[in-house]
């Protein structure tokens, strides 16, 4: 697996002067792999937007380094960065005449000359991006005539046209209704799993992200950022701790499950309680069939450890992340 984004002791915050710098949290050291779909979440004021601004070179970090595809952001020119990282914001942009096709075409600007003339390849990439985002039919419309969900897709298509391995999205689900949210998360999953895009997005929509993302980066004011698969953060109580309120997976939420492509292998889990619920949730999110009675492997929990057993071996894991990684290798 290729490391796509790596933060090395990154310090973010604001500096009114050189001496008077105020860090929002302890230094951040996390990474994500190529093709990962990661959600950044945490209460308001945790520093999500500041982190995004630092990642997109909109503000300078107070310390530490950002590596994208093994390249140190501090050493690159704006033009070189624009080929590594694209952004999707919720800002309303443009005047009343700006067309969808213009916006998506602007994704090619880092690659074209001063006259912004598009060649055949550029046009091909633009058409492909419109197609992937599912908005070919909107190409000739003006941005102003679109709904929030459609506009979000336009900005995603623009990011796709920019053809970067890493895409940052600031609250992409913020103004969307439920059907649009489901369409959005389905699109993000397709882009990460089938088109190898590495996507980091911020969201407050816990139901949506817990059931769909590969990892969560969890933040809270003045607390160290932690990274983990959703179920680990929930089972360990970290999520409750960072948000300051207990979280329970409700049974009335929209069914985000079934968005993963199902796998043929089945896993046997018997046991009851919160921890077992999260274990089953993690398996289902990954597309495994979970059975009470039979399966290729058997899982149980004892003394706070996850135990995997098949006909020959028994192995123990501290976290669900390590367990599920092992299961992925197993099949």
């Amino acid at each position: 697996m290729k490391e796509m984004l790596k933060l090395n002791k990154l310090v973010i915050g604001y500096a009114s002067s050189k001496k008077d710098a105020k860090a929002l949290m302890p230094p951040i050291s996390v990474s994500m792999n190529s093709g990962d779909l990661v959600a950044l979440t945490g209460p308001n004021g945790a520093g999500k937007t500041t982190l995004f601004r630092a990642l997109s070179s909109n503000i300078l970090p107070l310390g530490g380094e950002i590596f994208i595809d093994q390249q140190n952001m501090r050493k690159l020119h704006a033009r070189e960065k624009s080929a590594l990282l694209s952004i999707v914001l919720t800002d309303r942009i443009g005047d009343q005449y700006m067309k969808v096709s213009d916006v998506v075409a602007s994704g090619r600007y880092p690659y074209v000359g001063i006259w912004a003339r598009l060649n055949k390849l550029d046009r091909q990439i633009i058409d492909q991006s419109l197609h992937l985002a599912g908005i070919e039919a909107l190409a000739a419309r003006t941005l102003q005539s679109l709904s929030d969900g459609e506009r979000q897709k336009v900005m995603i298509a623009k990011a796709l046209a920019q053809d970067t391995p890493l895409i940052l999205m600031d609250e992409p689900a913020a103004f969307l209704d439920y059907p649009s949210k489901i369409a959005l998360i389905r699109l993000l999953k397709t882009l990460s799993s089938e088109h190898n895009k590495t996507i980091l997005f911020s969201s407050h929509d816990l139901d949506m992200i817990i059931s769909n993302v590969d990892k969560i980066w969890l933040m809270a004011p003045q607390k160290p950022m932690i990274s983990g698969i959703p179920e680990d953060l929930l089972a360990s109580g970290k999520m409750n701790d960072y948000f300051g309120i207990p979280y329970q997976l409700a049974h009335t939420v929209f069914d985000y499950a079934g968005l993963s492509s199902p796998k043929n292998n089945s896993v046997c889990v018997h046991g009851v309680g919160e921890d077992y619920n999260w274990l089953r949730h993690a398996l289902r999110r990954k597309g495994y069939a979970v059975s009470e009675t039979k399966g290729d492997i058997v899982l149980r929990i004892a003394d706070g450890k996850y135990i995997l057993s098949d006909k020959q071996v028994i192995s123990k894991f501290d976290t669900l992340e390590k367990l599920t990684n092992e299961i992925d290798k197993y099949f």
Partner: protein
Amino acid sequence: MLLLNLFFGSVTIHPKEVISAFLGHSADIAESRRIILYEFRFPQAIVAIVAGAGLAVAGLLMQTLFRNPLADPSILGISSGASLGVALALFLAGSFSGQAAVNMGWFTSIGLSMAAFAGALMVLFFLLMISGRIKHVVTLLIIGIMIAYLTGSLTGLLRYYSQKEDIQAFVIWGMGTFSGVGSAQLPFFTGAIMLGLFVSILLSKSLNMILLGDRYAQNLGLNIKFQTRLILLLAGYLTAIITAYAGPIAFIGLAVPHIARNLFKTSDHRILIPASMLSGAVLALFCNLIARLPGLDGNLPINSITSLIGAPFVIWVMLRQNKQSILES
């Protein structure tokens, strides 16, 4: 429009005569009319074209930079800087010599132009200096408007202490004219504006990116600080030169970008910039024509005409835009 400008005026010149004059059949046209044509009407029309195009592009640059449809070349106080320059020059010349500056032989329109240019440059350099320290363009916009007020009140104070004839000269300068550029300065004026217009075309791609907002533009590889300064410098340069020679001409810079967007239904600056140039030139010629319609003696002040046509037009555009957004939502 150019031809109409050549035909009409206090003295109407027949189209046939104009055409034959340009074809070199000088014999077909009376000497006096030839002089009117070459020495006055033709330079005036060229100045109108160039100034109209320049102001329109400067207005477009400002509207895009500030992402504000009401921005225009005068919004940053550059033209009020020019006014201050003129007022200051008239005041100083008047108070040192003890007589009205306009009565002094050497203080001609060239002197006024230079004073206006110096005033405009002063404000422009101040803006460029502070633009590096400002994070948000809105702050820059507010500071620009403050500068406009400041220079405006200084101009008012100077006028209060100036001599009567000088005040009149100032008022006349403030009315704007396309006939202030003599045929000797015409090539310089035209060349300088053409250079600015050419540079603006080179900025089309950057302007398109800026229209997406600072963060998107930056993500697409644009150096925002540098481009902001470049656009300020360019808009200021165009405004300074035009104001120096033609006085503070209002509304062309504000109204024309809206005309261009409306006509071509686009936000792409590769189209908008040439479209603004064309519409600006045509509107300026039209205003120039209205200013000296047959039957009117002499020239009406251009500034009154541009506002007279520009103000209702901007109101109309705003109402139309309003109606459109209601229909679409």
